[in-house]
C-alpha cells in the first residue's frame, strides 16, 4: 500500500513531464528501429544469396545452368539435376552412411560423456577423476592435423578405416566439449536428490539411468546437436580415414563435381543442396539448443 502511494506520483509525473516532447522522440526511435532492421536485413543477404543461388541452380535445366546467370530463377523448374545427382552420388547409400555415422556419433557422445561427467562430478575429491577431467579436456587444444596421419595408419591396422572408425573418432573429438558441458550442469543438480533415491535402495546405475540421465535431457539435446553438426559436416576425417570410396560420407562425395561433371552445374548444385538440407532442417527444429549450447560452452 505504502509502496503504491509512493510510486503513484512518479508514474503519473513521467507522462506529464514527457508530454510535450514524447511524440517526436517516439518517432525518432521508431525511425532508428526501422533503419537498423533494414541495415541488418541487408546484411543478412550475404547469408541468403549464396543459399538462394544454390536452390535456383539446383532446379535449373543443364542448358539454363551453363548460360551464366546464377541469380536468375529457374525457368522451367526442373528436377533433372536431382535425378542425376541421386544416381551419381548413389544417394540412398551415401545418405545412409552419413546418417549412420552421425547417429552413432550422437548416441556415443551423449552416453559416454554423460557417464564420464557423472563419475567425475561425484568423485571430484579423488585425483583419478579430477585428472581424467583435465585429460579429456586437453583434446580441445589438440589440432586434428597433428594426430591425423597416425590415426590413418592406426585405423587401417585395426580395420577401422571405415565409417565406424570415423564415428568413433568423432565421438572422441567431441568428448572434451561434451564432458565439460555435462560436468558443469551436474554440479548444479543438488546431491540430495540422489541421496534420497539411494535411501530408497537405488543402485548408482539406477540413479544414473532413472534420475540423472533424464535430468540431463536439455543438456543432452545441446551436446547431441553439436555432435550431429560436427559429424554430418565433417570433411577432413572421413576423407582421410575411409579407404573404400563406396562407403564415403555425403560431404566428401561432393568433390566428384569438381572434376568429372564440372559443367553440369544443375547436377552439382542439386547434390550440394541434398548434402546441406539435413543439417539445415535439424537446425530449424533445434535452434534453441544450438544457441544456448554455444554460449554455455563459452562462459563455463
Amino acid at each position: 500500500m505504502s509502496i503504491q502511494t509512493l510510486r503513484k506520483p512518479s508514474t503519473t509525473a513521467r507522462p506529464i513531464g514527457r508530454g510535450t516532447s514524447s511524440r517526436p522522440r517516439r518517432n525518432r526511435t521508431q525511425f532508428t528501429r526501422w533503419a537498423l532492421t533494414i541495415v541488418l536485413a541487408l546484411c543478412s543477404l550475404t547469408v541468403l544469396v549464396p543459399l538462394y543461388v544454390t536452390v535456383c541452380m539446383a532446379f535449373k535445366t543443364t542448358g539454363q545452368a551453363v548460360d551464366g546467370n546464377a541469380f536468375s530463377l529457374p525457368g522451367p523448374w526442373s528436377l533433372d539435376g536431382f535425378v542425376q545427382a541421386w544416381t551419381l552420388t548413389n544417394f540412398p547409400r551415401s545418405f545412409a552412411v552419413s546418417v549412420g555415422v552421425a547417429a552413432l556419433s550422437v548416441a556415443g557422445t551423449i552416453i559416454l560423456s554423460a557417464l564420464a561427467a557423472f563419475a567425475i562430478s561425484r568423485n571430484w575429491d579423488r585425483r583419478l577423476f579430477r585428472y581424467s577431467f583435465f585429460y579429456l579436456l586437453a583434446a580441445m587444444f589438440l589440432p586434428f592435423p597433428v594426430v591425423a596421419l597416425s590415426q590413418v595408419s592406426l585405423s587401417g591396422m585395426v580395420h577401422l578405416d571405415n565409417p565406424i572408425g570415423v564415428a568413433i573418432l568423432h565421438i572422441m573429438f567431441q568428448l572434451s566439449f561434451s564432458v565439460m558441458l555435462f560436468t558443469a550442469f551436474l554440479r548444479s543438480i543438488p546431491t540430495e536428490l540422489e541421496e534420497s533415491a539411494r535411501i530408497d535402495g537405488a543402485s548408482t546405475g539406477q540413479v544414473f539411468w532413472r534420475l540423472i540421465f533424464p535430468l540431463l535431457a536439455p543438456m543432452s539435446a545441446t551436446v547431441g546437436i553439436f555432435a550431429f553438426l560436427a559429424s554430418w559436416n565433417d570433411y577432413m576425417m572421413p576423407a582421410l580415414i575411409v579407404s573404400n570410396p563406396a562407403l564415403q560420407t555425403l560431404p566428401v562425395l561432393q568433390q566428384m563435381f569438381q572434376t568429372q561433371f564440372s559443367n553440369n552445374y544443375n547436377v552439382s548444385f542439386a547434390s550440394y543442396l541434398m548434402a546441406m538440407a539435413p543439417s539445415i532442417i535439424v537446425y530449424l527444429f533445434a535452434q534453441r539448443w544450438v544457441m544456448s549450447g554455444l554460449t554455455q560452452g563459452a562462459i563455463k
Partner: protein
Amino acid sequence: MSLIRTSRPSRTSSPSRKRRVEPVFYAFLLPTVLAFTLAITVPALMGITLSFTDSVGFGEFKFIGLTNYIAAFSDPAILKAYGFTIGFALVTVVLVNVVSFFLALGLTEKIRAKVALRAVFVLPMVISGIVIAYVFNFLFSNSLPDFATAIGLKPLETSMLANPDLAWLALVLVTAWQAVPATLLIYIAGILSIPADVYEAAALDGATAWRKLASITIPLAAGYIVINVIMGFKGFMNAYDVIVGLTGGGPGTSTTSVAMSIFNGFGSGDYSYQMANATIFFLIAIVIALLQLRATHGKTTF
C-alpha cells in the same frame, strides 16, 4: 571459476579419511578414458616419436634426431605455409570479430523480426564447410567475373581464385562467412549480460550512443572479445575444408595452409618430415592454449 569452487572440498577433507569410491564409477569413466587414449593420445605420441625418425609411414625406420626439425625450419615451402596460415588467421580473426560484434550490437537492439534475423545469421554455422566452399567457388569463378566485367572492374574480371594476390581474400571471406555465427552468439550473450541500469545511468548523464559503446559495452564485453579472438585464431590456424573447396592450396602454393602441407605429406613419402611439422604446429597450439587459459582465468576473477 567452477573449477576453483569444486576443488576446495578436497583440500579441507583430511586425506586419511577418504571415502571408498564405488566401483561402478570406474566402469562409467575408465572405458571412455581408455578409448580416448587409444584414439587420440597414442596417435599423438606416435606422431611425435616418428618425427625423430626417417619413417615413410610404414616399414622400417631409424632414429635421426632433430634432422627433420632442422630441415623443416629451413624449408621455404613450410615457412611459406606458416606465414600464410598465421597471416590468414590474423586477418580472418579481425574481420570475423568486427563483423560479429557490430551484428551483435544490432541484434540486441529493439528491432523488427529479431528472431528471424538471428536465425538467418546463425544459419551458416550448420552448413558443411566443404559444400559451401564449392558454392562460393562457383560464385567467385563465374558470377563475380561476369559482374566485374559488366561494371568494368579490371582486377576482378578474371577469377579471384586463380589470382595469387587475391585468392587468400576469397578464403578469408568464405571462412568468415562460416565463422561469424559462433562468434556472434557469444557476443550476443556477452552484450545481454551487461546490466541495463548501467546504460540507464549513462543515458541520464547524457551519454551518446558512441560514448556508451566505447565506455560501457566494449569494456564490459572485453572478456568475450578475448575468448572469441583466441578461439577464432585457434580454429583458423587449422584451416583446411574451405581451402580444399576453393583453391586447393593454389594458385601454385600461395594458399597452402599448414594443415594442408601436413596432409600432403601422407602421399608424398616425407611422412616423418611432416610429423615434425605437425609437432611444431602442436607446440604453437599449446602456446595458444596457455594464452587462452590465462585470458579466461583473468576474465573469471574480475
